């Protein structure tokens, strides 16, 4: 296959063979309208000015590129840097696209926002952007996730968002996406759907990637300014793949930069125990796009598992499938146990609690850095902070955060 290029998608929303629009006819007009509005917005300097203003003064960008000295010492090889997306307002990269899309929705004259969320990070980011811009917001969230992520549910409600529990199917992220798409079909005239990852029908994968590309663009510039050159390796975790897409995209045509995506290896490689879509899946259609999918031989979506709710998704963005097929990005998997260890190591050695999603990237970074000479540079997309995972990590370590902690 030919080399990966940055000038994707094409007019039909294709990244090589991947992408496109597999949606009901009802949504086609809305997607056309969204695409036209987006094309118009990105040509307008005023839109960029407003977006950049909020990124700086509300989100807190640019985020730091931090040298992780003790992780570097532990690995004993390449210098490890952290691109600190955890320092964004709301604690993860999700706010970049939530804000961008909320601004786009306003520009399109939409008066209502809907979003889906799994663990709640994208829901919180959307609720935040909507509170900031005065847009009413409804977030669809699987009933199972509502139960598991009480804090994020509270945060969304505190900011005035309606959290709508989804009781269909497995009651998790993919059902929340189904429900949000359905709701959108009946409300497209006044409603914008803020999709949280680089998945779904065209133009969503492109819009989300573009708004997230601020991560990679800043990293690229910071490396050139602080280190005088581009990094050798860039690593990010991949669920749907939005932080990875935003980080990788500005480096796609820098052939000297090795790009590595880390998926959720879960409990191991047998079906139903992981969410390593690119490692173990095959091309198929899910949620409106043609990309790698975890499904059975009939096309029914497979069950997935990950310690990290943000990576627990049976699909992946079409551009990642394109990068896999062209060989531009290498995709690996990190299992639950290793990710938990990564959480502990990073917390102890750097004083930064990583999100469990991010912990997957940390583990792979330590493994790769060890094999690289000391003059090499490796950057981790530090996608989010670990506060949201403290209860889950404590539970897995056999600790009880609600109980007596005087002896710990």
């Amino acid at each position: 296959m030919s080399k990966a290029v940055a000038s994707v998608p094409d007019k039909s929303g294709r990244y090589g063979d991947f992408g496109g629009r597999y949606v009901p006819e009802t949504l086609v007009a809305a997607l056309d309208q969204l695409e036209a509005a987006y094309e118009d917005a990105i040509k307008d300097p005023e839109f960029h000015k407003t977006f950049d203003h909020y990124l700086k003064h509300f989100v807190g960008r640019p985020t730091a590129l931090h040298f992780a000295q003790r992780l570097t010492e532990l690995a004993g090889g390449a210098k490890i840097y952290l691109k600190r997306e955890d320092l964004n307002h709301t604690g993860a990269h999700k706010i970049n696209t939530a804000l961008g899309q909320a601004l786009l929705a306003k520009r399109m004259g939409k008066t209502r926002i809907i979003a889906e969320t799994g663990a709640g990070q994208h829901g919180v980011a959307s609720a935040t952007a909507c509170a900031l811009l005065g847009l009413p917001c409804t977030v669809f969230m699987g009933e199972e996730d509502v139960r598991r992520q009480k804090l994020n549910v509270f945060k969304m409600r505190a900011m005035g968002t309606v959290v709508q529990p989804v009781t269909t199917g497995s009651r998790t992220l993919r059902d929340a996406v189904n429900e949000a798409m359905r709701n959108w079909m009946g409300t497209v005239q006044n409603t914008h759907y803020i999709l949280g990852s680089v998945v779904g029908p065209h133009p969503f994968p492109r819009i989300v990637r573009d708004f997230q590309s601020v991560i990679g663009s800043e990293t690229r510039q910071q490396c050139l300014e602080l280190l005088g050159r581009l990094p050798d390796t860039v690593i990010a975790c991949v669920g749907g793949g939005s932080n990875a897409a935003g980080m990788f995209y500005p480096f796609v045509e820098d052939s000297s930069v090795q790009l590595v995506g880390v998926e959720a290896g879960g409990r191991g490689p047998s079906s139903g125990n992981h969410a390593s879509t690119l490692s173990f899946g095959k091309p198929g259609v899910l949620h409106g796009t043609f990309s790698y999918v975890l499904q059975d031989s009939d096309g029914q979506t497979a069950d997935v598992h990950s310690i990290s709710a943000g990576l627990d998704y049976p699909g992946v963005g079409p551009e990642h499938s394109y990068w896999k097929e062209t060989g531009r990005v290498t995709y690996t998997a990190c299992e639950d146990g290793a990710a938990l260890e990564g959480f502990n190591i990073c917390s102890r050695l750097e004083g930064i609690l990583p999100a469990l999603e991010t912990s997957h990237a940390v583990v792979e970074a330590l493994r790769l850095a060890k094999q690289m000479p000391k003059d090499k540079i490796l950057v981790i997309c530090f996608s989010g902070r670990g506060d949201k995972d403290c209860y889950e990590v404590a539970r897995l370590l056999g600790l009880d955060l609600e109980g007596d902690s005087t002896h710990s």
Partner: protein
Amino acid sequence: MTPLESTFANLKAAKRKAFIPFLSLGDPSLDATRIFLGELAEAGATAIELGFPYSDPIADGAVIQASYTRAMANKNSMADWLQFASGLGNDSKISTVPRLAMLSYSLIHPQGLQNFVNKVKIAGIVGLIVPDLPVDESTHLLQSCKQAGLDLIQLVTPTTPRERAKRILDSSSGFVYCVSVAGITGERRELPQELLGQLDWLRSQTALPLCVGFGISRPDQVEMLRNHCDGVIVGSALVRLCENAGNQPGKQPITEVVKNIGTLARSMVAALNPAG
């Protein structure tokens, strides 16, 4: 002429309107589905839509999704469904009623388009409705269907701009599936008045039969529509009746459900064809 085309030609000659019921395969079991289909055929169904259960149906409403979830608990495979469809060709009640498959493109892709089209044709299915495959993505499937003499029924919705609707009409065959409302499948109290205007416009653009679906659940809706279309598709209202089937307390025996399905179907057929 495809089987569907001759069915509609005969219907037109008899000055009658089409009643096209939809049922999910295997809700609550494939045996029950066969009994329900027999009743629908006896009640005067013009054609039958077989819904192939899918884990993540974005075009369908809560009633049909729940039905798919129930059906999938039976762990039937695509091979089972196609075998079931084949069997309908030997069922004296059903064999004369054309069968259509309504399914997500997610289930077609893994089979390979040509292979899938050949398989459904062998199973006696005469047309496909793929609600998540818009015309822009349907070129290859359309080609395979044409070669096999199968109809690929396309959907037009209230949000479809007219220029685009013309393109959809150009690549449709069998009939045009006119979606009554912006949204998903499911019963609705009111149908928008604009629908009639859209149907009349579509009528001026194509000789293909126009069948209206999504939200059709009652005879009075049919009375409003019948002079503006060639037939109606009824899904959720029937599926909701299947929902009640079962042996547990609070559920209805199959015989009871069959009776209810027959009653609804006959009232629809009567509303579509008031003269006789």
